[in-house]
Structures are given as C-alpha cells and as structure tokens.
C-alpha cells in the first residue's frame, strides 16, 4: 500500500499558543554536569531578527547513542539522567533562542566513515511554508569536521562555515553561538533531508 503524503503548511505567526514548552530549551535538566549552551539569533534576508520562529534540535547523546528502536545498534538509555535528545525554543523579541544540552558523540556512517558531532536543526516560522533543516557542528572539532561527509560535500568553504558554531568570546567553556541567516548575505546552508 502506498498513500500520498500530506503537504506542509507554514507554522504561521501564532505558534506560541501551544508549541513552546517551559522545559523545551533543556535537552538536559539545568545544572547537569558537562552541559553546554548554544545561543543564537535568527535573521531574515534584510538582516532583521526573526522574532516569531521556533528552533528544534535533535542529536545523539555523548556516547553517540539514541534511545530509539530504529538505531540498528540498539536503543540505548541516555548517558545522563533526563537527557531527551530533543530541544525546542521559540525566538524572543531579539530573534534569540537558547538550547541547553550535552555534546553529542560522533556517529558511524552506514557505509563506513564517521560523522562529526552535530545537532540536526529544524527552523519553523511565518514565511516558511515548510521547515528548513540545518546542522550545528562544533568549532573545536576541526579534525572530525574535516572528515565529516556532510560538511565535506559542501564545496564552498564560506558556506560550510555557516554550519559551525563559534565559541562565545570571553564566555565560559561550553558556551557556543550559532546564528541562522534564512536568506541573503552569509545565508546558512539548509538541507533537503
């Protein structure tokens, strides 16, 4: 049996009625040992902050595992208590979001090779008729990033750079910044998944 799928429609301007959860930004509970914070702003093609977007993240745990039956290595209980793998945060009046999580481990590719530590990201907003998908990689993983097949497939180095978070200048270790530019100058790479 094959059923035709249901089309996507925009999340619109009123997603805040139900989609934000109080604990949404916390992939791990606040105060978890080794927790990192990723903050960033979402910008439109005019460089203005997008104040009505929703960011969602999904990632492996620090041991490179997923608590999910479709992982052929077997579902694994999370490496840290309360780790959900999933983060969700609406942007605020300055277009800013924040995710508190643990560093994901690297992942084996099906046909060999290794994916560098990364988070998959969905961006939803008014003006986007479907979500757009991007990835967050880490700036202190240069060697792993260089060997990552998804990053390596992007020929243009400047474009590839849009997928790599930066350390917050003067910030504590584990404080990262990842801005998302939906369109135009320094546009973030978005994927067809």
């Amino acid at each position, binding site marked *: 049996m094959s059923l035709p799928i249901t089309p996507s429609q925009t*999340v619109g301007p009123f997603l805040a009625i139900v*989609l934000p959860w109080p604990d949404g930004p916390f992939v791990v509970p606040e105060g978890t040992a080794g927790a990192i914070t990723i903050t960033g702003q979402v910008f439109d093609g005019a460089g203005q902050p997008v104040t009505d977007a929703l960011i969602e993240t*999904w990632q492996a745990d620090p041991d490179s595992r997923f608590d999910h039956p479709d992982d052929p290595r077997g579902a694994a209980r999370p490496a840290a208590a309360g780790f959900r793998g999933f983060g969700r945060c609406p942007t605020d009046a300055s277009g800013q979001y924040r995710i508190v999580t643990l560093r994901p481990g690297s992942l084996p590719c099906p*046909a060999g090779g290794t994916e560098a530590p990364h988070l998959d990201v969905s961006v939803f907003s008014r003006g986007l008729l479907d979500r757009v998908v991007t990835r967050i990689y880490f700036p202190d993983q240069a060697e792993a990033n260089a060997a990552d097949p998804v990053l390596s497939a992007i020929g243009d180095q400047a474009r590839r750079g849009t997928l790599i978070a930066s350390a917050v200048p003067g910030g504590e270790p584990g404080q990262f910044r990842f801005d998302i530019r939906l*369109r135009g100058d320094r546009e973030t790479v*978005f994927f067809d998944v």
Partner: protein
Amino acid sequence: MTADPHGTGQHGVASGGLILPRYERPDGVHPPLNSPEYRSSQLRAPAQPLVPMPQWLTEVTGPLLGAERVTAADSDLTTRHPGEPLGERIIVTGRVLDSGGRPVPDTLVEIWQANSAGRYAHRVDDHPAPLDPNFDGAGRCLTDADGRYRFVTVKPGAYPWRNHLNAWRPAHIHFSLFGRAFTQRLVTQMYFPGDPLFAQDPIFNSVPDPKARERMIARFDLNLTEPDWALGFEWDIVLRGPSATVFETQEDA
C-alpha cells in the same frame, strides 16, 4: 552544489554496515519555499538551493515524546475554562499514518487555532474580532495504538490578514506532528470542506498539486457527528514512510 555526494540511492542498504530505514523523498507535494504570492516568504525563504542530505542515524531517529507531555484534558478545547466557548462544537479525528499505510502510534499531535470569531488568543493578533475568555485554541494528544487522534473543539472562524488587498485565511486548524524519525516531522494546516476562501489563499495554493491540496481538507462525516452535540470531521495525516523493502531487509538482518 553537489548532486548526490552520498549515493542517496544506496545508503539505506549498505553492505556490512549499519542498515537504516530510508524515507521517501516526495517530489512536488510540499510547497516551494519561494512562493512569491505568499509575501512573508520573500525575506525568509532561503535563496540558495537546498543541499541534499543523507538519512543517517540522526535523521532516521527522532524524539519519541510520550504521555508525560499530555493530559486527558488537553484534547478537549471546550472544557478547560469556567464556561463553554462560543461557536459550532466540532469533533476532529483521524489517523496518523505513514506512506506505507502503517499507523503511527503513540505520537504527539499538537494543534492551535483561532476562536469561532477568527481571533487568536495571541498578543500579536490585532484583528478586531472578540476574544473568547473560554477558549485558548491550544490542544495536544497522543495517537492510540491504531494511530488515531481525536479533538473536541469549536470551528475556527476565517480572518483577514495583510498579504494582499482583502486577503482572508480560510478556516483552519494548525497541526504539528513528529512521527518517529526526524525525517517525518511535519507542521501543516487542516481546512474545512467547501470553503469559499480557498481560491484566493496563497498559503493553501502554495501546494502546487491540486490533488495534494485536497489532502489538507477534512471530510464532514455524519457518522462521527454526535446527535444534539457536535459536528464530526475526519482527517487522516500521512507522513513520509520508510521503504518497505528496506524494512524487510532490516528485519532479516
């Protein structure tokens, strides 16, 4: 831009490696991100083409959000306030399936909508229609073992917006769905049959295929309608499914 750096046609059945489900990539179903008739897309839709991405471990897994996200009261939008909301009481139910026809059980469904006057309980909605103190427009439920969801609510009103002169959104309910994999995530809108506003709505018409547009419209069902109480609408939602052959291989492995 690279065409298919990962051998997308092959990666689901790698020999000797991980064997992963592979989700179909439907062409021409979803709206193009650049849809000039929908004015807000002009500054927000990416200008660069999307880069093909493999479906590997992060993509074929996803959050399995459970019962802790939902209470029984969350699926009835008419009983959470001191009084009943104004409007036509309706039942909206259906199944969440994948394109292989398999039900998607235990998956979180989140909905939001305008009240019966066409006004959202949200600070940025300045449409001069009344708010309803007995309606917040938010609903959640989990699908059952058969993939079925069910909400009780009121029929949302149409409302004007500023996309073009005399622009009105057809009545709709927003739906957010997870499925079981990152690839299956879907946010969409459910419409009501026979709405005269379809023809002028750039969001509804952003879906290029008229048959695909029809799949966003619920069906009125007298059998679901409860006498002396509420009108019944049925709407099934179909998420991208994994290829059956790959799944069989996985089970054999």
